[in-house]
C-alpha cells in the first residue's frame, strides 16, 4: 500500500479545512455533508452492534463519521490501554472504554475542539472515568512511547498529508506486541494530480 501522496498545496491549509469540516459535523451532525454520519449508518453499513450503540450518548453516535469498524477487528481486553487516533465525538473510544472497564485507560486524540468537547461530555455522561481526551493530531500524537496495548483509528489516516509519519506515530506509541485496529479508506489506483490537489476531496 502506498503511504505517500504528493500534493501541490499548503498542508496547513488542508489541516484548517479538515478542522473546519469536522467542527461543522460536531456542531450539526444532521447538516448537509457528502459522507454518512450516525448510528444507523454505523449499524447498517459497517456492522456495529445496534444494542452497543444504544448505550453510547446520542450526541456522540450522531456525529460518528467513520469509514469502517475498528472495534470489530479484534478483541480489546479489560484493563488495557487504548489510544484512539482522531477520536472525533468519541463513539469508538467509548465502545473501547466499555471493553477495558475502569481498570483500563482510553486516550482519545483529536485536532477538532468541538469533537473533543463532545467526546469528553459523552464520556462523563456515560460514567466512563477511564476516558481521557487530548488535543493533537495523527502526525504528532501527544502520547508517550510504547504505552498502548491497542491503537484504534477510523477514517483519519486518509486525511493526513504524510501517511508514513502518521503510521510511524502509531508504531511509536504501541508497546511491543501491541495491536493496531485500523479502519480507513484505500484507493485501488493511482490518483491523478488534479484529484490529489483538490482540497475539498481531501477534507471529506
Amino acid at each position: 500500500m502506498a503511504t505517500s501522496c504528493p500534493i501541490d498545496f499548503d498542508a496547513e491549509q488542508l489541516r484548517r479545512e479538515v478542522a473546519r469540516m469536522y467542527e461543522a459535523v460536531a456542531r450539526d451532525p444532521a447538516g448537509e455533508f457528502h459522507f454518512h454520519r450516525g448510528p444507523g449508518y454505523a449499524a447498517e453499513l459497517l456492522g456495529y452492534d445496534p444494542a452497543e450503540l444504544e448505550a453510547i450518548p446520542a450526541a456522540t453516535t450522531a456525529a460518528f463519521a467513520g469509514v469502517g469498524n475498528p472495534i470489530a477487528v479484534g478483541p480489546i481486553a479489560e484493563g488495557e490501554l487504548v489510544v484512539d487516533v482522531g477520536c472525533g465525538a468519541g463513539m469508538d473510544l467509548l465502545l473501547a472504554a466499555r471493553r477495558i472497564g475502569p481498570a483500563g485507560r482510553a486516550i482519545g486524540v483529536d485536532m477538532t475542539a468541538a469533537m473533543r468537547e463532545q467526546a469528553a461530555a459523552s464520556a462523563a455522561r456515560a460514567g466512563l472515568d477511564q476516558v481521557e481526551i487530548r488535543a493533537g493530531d495523527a502526525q504528532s500524537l501527544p502520547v508517550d512511547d510504547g504505552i498502548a496495548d491497542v491503537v484504534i483509528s477510523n477514517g483519519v489516516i486518509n486525511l493526513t498529508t504524510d501517511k508514513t509519519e502518521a503510521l510511524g506515530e502509531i508504531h511509536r506509541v504501541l508497546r511491543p506486541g501491541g495491536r493496531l485496529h485500523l479502519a480507513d479508506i484505500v484507493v485501488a489506483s493511482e490518483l491523478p494530480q488534479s484529484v490529489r490537489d483538490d482540497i475539498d476531496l481531501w477534507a471529506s
Partner: protein
Amino acid sequence: MVARFDPFLGTAKEKVTRKFGVTGVNVFARKPG
C-alpha cells in the same frame, strides 16, 4: 485486512469513489516484540 466496506454508498461522493476504486477497509496489525 479482514473486511472491505463501501462507506460512500448512497452519498454524493459515490460516483467519484467508485471511479477510483475507493473502499473502506478494516485492518489488524501487531507490533513485533
